[in-house]
């Protein structure tokens, strides 16, 4: 997946915002190393320097602090890592992921290895925001939705649908980096534990 911007030359907007979702999917799934055909992309502006954000993200063991459904990420050798993630309903799903491209301070791209419960690939990009406003962080994820249409609806009900999740996780990353904590409206420890379960 070398580039997620539209190369067919219609305008300058990211492919993930195309009205023609089907065209976006076809273009995206033909990209190098793509796994899955549902495209989701989101950008947030984070009021912190690019290198700091990259460093925190690149240490994958940090990710469960703000990626809501990620239970654990175990770093293996050769840029590989093993992921345990909450799936629809009570299930957990697992995969081994390999970093396919890495430019310090700018970009991490990954794809899953054979046998993943939910094959996926994506990239997280860090760019200086215009006007000295910190960093633009863009997450682009291609994935196979959990099995059937029904699976996807169930997933949505449980808010485990990757597109929704990516958007919310980026907000949590922003909160974690800008404020040092992830916002919660829980009143009691018990409520917070239930939210995180």
């Amino acid at each position, binding site marked *: 997946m070398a580039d997620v911007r539209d190369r067919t030359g219609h305008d300058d907007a990211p492919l993930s915002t195309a009205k023609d979702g089907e065209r976006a999917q076809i273009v995206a799934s033909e990209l190098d190393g793509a796994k899955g055909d549902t495209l989701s992309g989101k950008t947030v502006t984070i009021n912190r320097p690019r290198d700091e954000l990259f460093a925190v993200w690149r240490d994958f063991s940090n990710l469960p602090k703000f990626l809501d459904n990620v239970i654990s990420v175990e770093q293996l050798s050769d840029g590989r890592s093993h992921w345990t993630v909450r799936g629809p309903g009570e299930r957990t799903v697992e995969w081994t992921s390999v970093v396919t491209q890495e430019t310090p301070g700018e970009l991490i791209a990954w794809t899953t290895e054979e046998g993943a419960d939910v094959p996926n690939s994506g990239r997280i990009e860090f760019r200086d925001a215009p006007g000295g406003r910190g960093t633009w962080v863009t997450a682009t994820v291609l994935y196979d939705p959990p099995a059937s249409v029904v699976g996807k609806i169930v997933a949505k009900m449980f808010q485990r649908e990757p597109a929704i999740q990516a958007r919310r996780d980026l907000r949590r990353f922003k909160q974690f980096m800008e404020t040092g904590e992830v*916002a919660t409206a829980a009143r009691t420890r018990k409520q917070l534990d239930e939210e995180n379960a």
Partner: protein
Amino acid sequence: MRALTWHGKHDVRVDTVDDPDILNPRDAILKITSTAICGSDLHLYDGYIPTMQAGDILGHEFMGEVVEIGRDSTLQKGQRVVVPFTIACGSCFHCSKHQYSACDNGLPADNQDIAQTLYGQPMSGLFGYSHMTGGYAGGQAEYVRVPFSDVGPIVIPDGIEDDKVLFLSDILPTGWQAAENAEIEPGDTVAVWGCGPVGLFSVQSAFLMGAERVIAIDHFPHRLELARKFGAETINFEETKTYEALMEMTGGIGPDACIDAVGLEAHGFFADNVWDQIKASTFLGTDRTHSIRQAILACRKGGRVSMPAVYGGFVDKFPLGAFMEKGLTLKTGQTHVQHYLPGLLNAIMEEKIDTTFLISHRLSLEQAPDGYKMFHDKQNEVTKVVLKPGLDLARVP
């Protein structure tokens, strides 16, 4: 602890619920000493605000004593603080511009979708004001958890009683921001719709900012009387044609600046209002907006309209033509409370601003449901209800 909880339209109760805990490093827990019922709470009471859930604890105007602090709180146990109703992080782009009510990080990530869909971008969190604004428990309770306690709360020096500073939490800065948004110039005449707490503080603030005349509009004689005490001229819209009166009272020019401090529950049998009410009672669609329409129509050419009043949804028959043709400016928004606190606390200590005139009733927390009913049914006499959880203890023999 005991807390005032929402259960539906005109149904609030005092329930026993679990005490709050410190959950994040920047949190603090307060023991509430005073907490007020706000005009905005009436919108919840009347069922106009969506995304409320049974059992939600209300209250966004409160102060108290710090009883517990998280690792990164800058407060100290025992300090008395007033808390802004807007929950803001202090470190995002908007906070750095002092646009606290637009904070990026005040809402939990999962609660941001509703506001993002409805408004385009999520706003800051608010205490005790529906799940669209975060679902945070409010302060009409014995205790409250305060996030970002190193940024929001202002410490009150010893010797200043609660009643003088409680309104720093919302309505005083709201009235002040409303007057600031009216961009008052020397010689100006400012018209203020609504003589509730927000309108009355707008009147005071407008004079402090140099307005030559303020004309206050309401239909409650007692509230108009309070406005008159601060030097305002008044219009009772039940007896007087407001637009005609404003034009006559300004020599045919119209007020230089108009402040709408009424909001989505405008009273009165005006044709547009009745239509709005029918629609508002059926779904979150059309707010009752008589006052803002009238403000735009009356405002002088090239004048300023300031709208502290809360609207939540969409409006019909917004006089966009008048607004454009006359070249008006409209400024509005939830108040950036944190920005105004130091200055307004000073103004209170120097006795430039009086806040205690407003309080008509002091009740215990257990009496809160009566307080809501009174404030709702008898707006003429009941100008502001302050709840004192301590009064409950005092009564135990």
